[in-house]
């Protein structure tokens, strides 16, 4: 068993584009926008970056294959650039590549950038994926979409805990209302209007029992991070250094889909979060985690995730949510502090880095109207794929030495 990543790598700088329907911009514009903020924040020159990792998911409709699109867009100095794709964890995977590259000692300074240009497909929602699922799967897999795949979990969660579907809908509505309230405070968010519980409850049906406002937006965006060792960060005169505390990944192996699973939790998130707490030295996440950005692709995902992160007890997430435990400034563990996927949308390759960006800003006291008092540890979570077959990534970052 390795010793883990805790405090071995520091974040030198981060950047994040404005997320939204960027009709006038392509993936290259978005990457450059995020990168310019990031390199300025890092206070280094581009030539000091020794390696880079690019995260993107729908390469077919977005940037194309390989990492060349990032190397070209950013005019990187002929360094190693690697494209990673692991569903919705792609952004966090890029970060993991850069962090591990530095931690290994192979590089002093590395870049992680994620991007997705979704709004070039001509229709709402994520790109249709039947033709990208493989030549066998496309011949038998059910006619499912992202909202449908996650919506199913509401039915099995309700059945497991004997809840009425309307109770769950009420808790899911609270989740969306909370995220919209947070997103309204964030100039980089796509959706910035607060909504009411009734608006959410009455929104048009997308996939039973999810309505439109249970679903995150669909946006274009990019976010990036430059990482280095804590020693180099200090040598560059950086103060309030933010370091990586944990990076964990867990993937389904088919158990959920084909063997045995209650449909009321994420096996992967349950495992990855536990490993991340161990790596970060967290023993009581409900008390020790200061804030979270979780993968709220759909409100039901966020609801169930609260239990998988071992913060709400099994079957008690609806109560915690309705009690406001995850609301901003309510004394619990604020979740989706920046507005979440709900308000940022989900340009897949960018999302994990966008989440880390908010945690980074908060830890440095730069989150403006959303700023939390003295946050110590921030957790980010991505859940790519579907409840029955997925990739889960967890990252914890915090103040160096905290």
């Amino acid at each position, binding site marked *: 068993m390795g010793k883990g990543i805790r405090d071995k790598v520091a974040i030198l700088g981060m950047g994040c584009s404005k997320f939204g329907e960027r009709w006038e911009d392509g993936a290259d514009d978005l990457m450059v926008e995020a990168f310019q903020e990031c390199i300025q924040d890092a206070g280094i020159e581009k030539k000091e970056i020794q390696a880079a990792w690019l995260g993107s998911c729908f390469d077919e409709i977005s940037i194309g294959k390989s990492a060349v699109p990032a190397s070209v867009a950013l005019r990187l100095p002929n360094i190693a650039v690697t494209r990673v794709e692991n569903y919705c964890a792609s952004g966090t995977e890029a970060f993991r590549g850069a962090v591990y590259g530095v931690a290994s000692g192979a590089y002093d300074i590395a870049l992680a950038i994620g991007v997705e240009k979704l709004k070039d497909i001509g229709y709402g929602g994520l790109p249709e994926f039947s033709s990208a699922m493989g030549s066998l799967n496309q011949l038998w897999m059910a006619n499912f979409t992202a909202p*449908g795949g996650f919506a199913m979990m509401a039915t099995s969660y309700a059945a497991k805990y004997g809840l009425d579907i309307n109770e769950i809908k009420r808790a899911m509505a609270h989740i969306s209302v909370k995220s919209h309230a947070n997103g309204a405070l964030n100039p980089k968010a796509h959706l910035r209007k607060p909504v009411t519980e009734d608006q959410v409850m009455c929104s048009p049906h*997308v*996939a039973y029992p999810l309505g439109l406002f249970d679903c995150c937006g669909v946006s274009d965006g990019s976010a990036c991070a430059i990482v280095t060792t804590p020693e180099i960060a200090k040598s560059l005169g950086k103060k309030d250094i933010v370091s990586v505390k944990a990076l964990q990944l867990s993937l389904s192996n088919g158990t959920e889909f084909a063997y045995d699973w209650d449909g009321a939790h994420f096996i992967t998130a349950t495992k990855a979060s536990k490993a991340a707490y161990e790596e970060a030295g967290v023993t009581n996440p409900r008390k020790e985690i200061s804030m979270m950005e979780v993968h709220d692709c759909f409100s039901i995902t966020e609801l169930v995730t609260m239990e998988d992160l071992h913060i709400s007890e099994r079957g008690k997430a609806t109560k915690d949510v309705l009690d406001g435990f995850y609301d901003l400034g309510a004394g619990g563990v604020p979740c989706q502090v920046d507005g979440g996927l709900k308000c940022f949308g989900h340009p897949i390759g960018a999302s994990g880095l966008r989440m880390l960006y908010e945690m980074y800003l908060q830890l440095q006291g730069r989150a403006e109207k959303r700023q939390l008092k003295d946050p110590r540890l921030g957790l980010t979570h991505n859940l790519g794929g579907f409840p029955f077959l997925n990739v889960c990534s967890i990252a914890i970052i915090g103040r160096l030495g905290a």
Partner: protein
Amino acid sequence: MIGITSYGGYIPRYRLSRMLIVQNMAWYFPVIMAVAGGEKAVANWDEDSVSMAVAAAYDCMKGKDRKALEGLYFASTTMPFTDRINAGIVATALNMREANAVNADFSACMKAGTTAAISALDAIGAGTRDNILVVASDQRRTKMATMLEMFYGDGAAAVLFGSGDVIAEFKGSYSINCDFVDHYKGHGKDFDYAFEERWVRDVGYGKIIPEAVKGYLAKYGMKIGDFSKVIYPCYFSGTHAAIARDLGIDKSKVQDNLHNTCGDTGSAHPLVLLVAALEEASPGDKLLVAGFGQGCDVLAFEVTDKIKSLKQRTGIKGSLAKRVEFTNFQKYAKFRNLITADLGIRGEANPNTALTVLWRKRKMLLGLVGVKCTKCGTPQFPSYPVCVNPDCWSANSFEDYEFSDKAGKVLMFTGDMLSASVDPPAVYGLVHFEGGGRSMFDFTDCDLSQVKVGVSTSMAFRLRQVDSVRGFTGYFWKAVPQTEGGGA
């Protein structure tokens, strides 16, 4: 003794009231008002002749060993492929053996079903085959506001012929073949082209069927009164009755033509009616069945005691009882592609079918055959080289395991409005099978409002996608939640 050893039937659950057609289309062609009574069976959007044939075949093979089948004859005028044996799709869906079996398509005629039956009986009688499964099915599209739209219904029947455990002994056949063309469907055409009904009634059904029946009686030295049921298709009710009068058949001994409850199922109809008759038959009953189309086939059977030991099945009677009224005429028109509705850009994706994959995975894709781990006993679908059970994870230690006949329970589900679907919302979910194994399937023949976690399911072979660019029709299996009633 040779003859019928089992039977099965399938009529889709949607029923369209003819009055609904009249209400929507009589403005265009008021003559359809003359036949406004009753209702017709309408296939769901994901059903076609092949899928209905598979349903009827499974019904027929209840309690029988599908691996023992030596041949499958498929009769239909609405087969999806003109070069790729359609019976082979049905056979693979049945997980029939591939070696030492003979499959064949019988097509291009309304009496294709009875001709397939005669051919099967010829082979069995000659001793070259022990058994042959004959499946007949039709799902005929019709132009709107036509008499054919009023008459045609969708359905399938399957009859197993053989020499052991005969439930109805074959008592000979007689055929007339003549090029009487009451209607035809030319190459590449979507719809039938029919000639004047008066001529079809008087010179076609009204003359050729009695002539063939009389031919049979003369050949075998029998009288019409010897038969307890005389079975023949003819969707003109007056002519149907007139044929009985002409032949001197007592009204009570004429098999109902199912015009009021199902409509005429084309090349399947003689066997559909035969199955309906067998469902009511008692040992000793003699049945005479005729198929009409460019002539007429006549076959006779005598029911044996063995009919009592036949396992319970859905059949035609059971299918007709599973009835849901189709109240939306536009939806019917869309299901039959008579109108153009936008599926949206999301529905445009149309990758070709990898025939290599279809070959390697034919048992999985068409037969819903998974595996059972020989080390830990876990059934699983789909199969991967390593067992799914985390306490086992043995590699390549599997035997085939059929899921097609396994009941299941819904674990989680949704009704998805975002999916590109002909019948939104697309309902699908994760199903756990009795005896183990689970997978995700599209659901069919259900209303979202009726689906609940824990509802029982059965599996149905269904059309999955039609690739109109390349002309390929793809099939897979869907889960049918066992709910009562519903609507459309």
